């Protein structure tokens, strides 16, 4: 098991958050805590860099849905980038890929 970490990076057009390790059900609520200050600042675009995310489970998916909802309440957007094939497959099988725009890399996702 790899430790789950979230590091945020502020850019001109929003925030890129680098998710690393295992987003398992035990640590899923870390997502809510990590983005609480970003939401308070009403950042309009959050890009989740998933390139080093090795695993994601259902409670973490639910946290991302809630984050997307909170952003949408003030007109913000949530985008995903760089997911490995296993993580991307989870989004496809659950049909959540239809809710989250997915990009190849975070720089592209934050700038378009």
């Amino acid at each position, binding site marked *: 098991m790899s430790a789950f970490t979230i590091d945020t990076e502020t850019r001109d057009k929003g925030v890129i958050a680098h998710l690393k390790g295992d987003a*398992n059900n035990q640590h899923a609520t870390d997502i809510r805590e990590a983005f609480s200050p970003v939401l308070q600042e009403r950042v309009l675009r959050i890009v989740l860099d998933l390139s080093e995310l090795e695993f994601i489970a259902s409670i973490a998916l*639910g946290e991302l849905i809630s984050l997307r909802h909170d952003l949408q309440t003030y007109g913000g957007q949530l985008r995903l980038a760089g997911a490995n094939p296993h993580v991307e497959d989870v989004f496809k099988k*659950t049909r959540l890929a239809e809710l989250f725009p997915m990009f190849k890399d975070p720089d592209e996702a934050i700038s378009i």
Partner: protein
Amino acid sequence: MPGSAEHRLVLQSRFDEVARAEAAVLELAEQHGYDATAQFAIKLSMEEAITNAIKHGNQMDPAKSVTVTYSVTENLARITVCDQGGGFTPNGVPDPTLDENLEKPHGRGIMLIKAYMTEASYSDCGRCLTMIKQRDCRLPEQA
């Protein structure tokens, strides 16, 4: 070959117990040469099954435990997760992939297990879930 025997772990009703069971099964899967895709499927399914057992089955009751029974052979991994809760009706769980449920933040665990395992079946009034991952067949090389 190690791993063909049946093993049993008894977990406390805490989320930090889940990784211990996953690691034990994945170690055997690795020894038997299961590829990264199969190992991801097993890990995700165990994560969801044990989480459900702790959260919905045992209701996080520290007096109750979750029993994980498992065996891994070259061709097949079989994992059974049993809780000590009141049971439930699996067919009563809404399909999270329907349009009307897509934005709901909960209810994807069982769907993921069914999507990633070859077989998944409940017994003991929903208290036990047996999951099977059939490894892709390796055919003999043509002469």
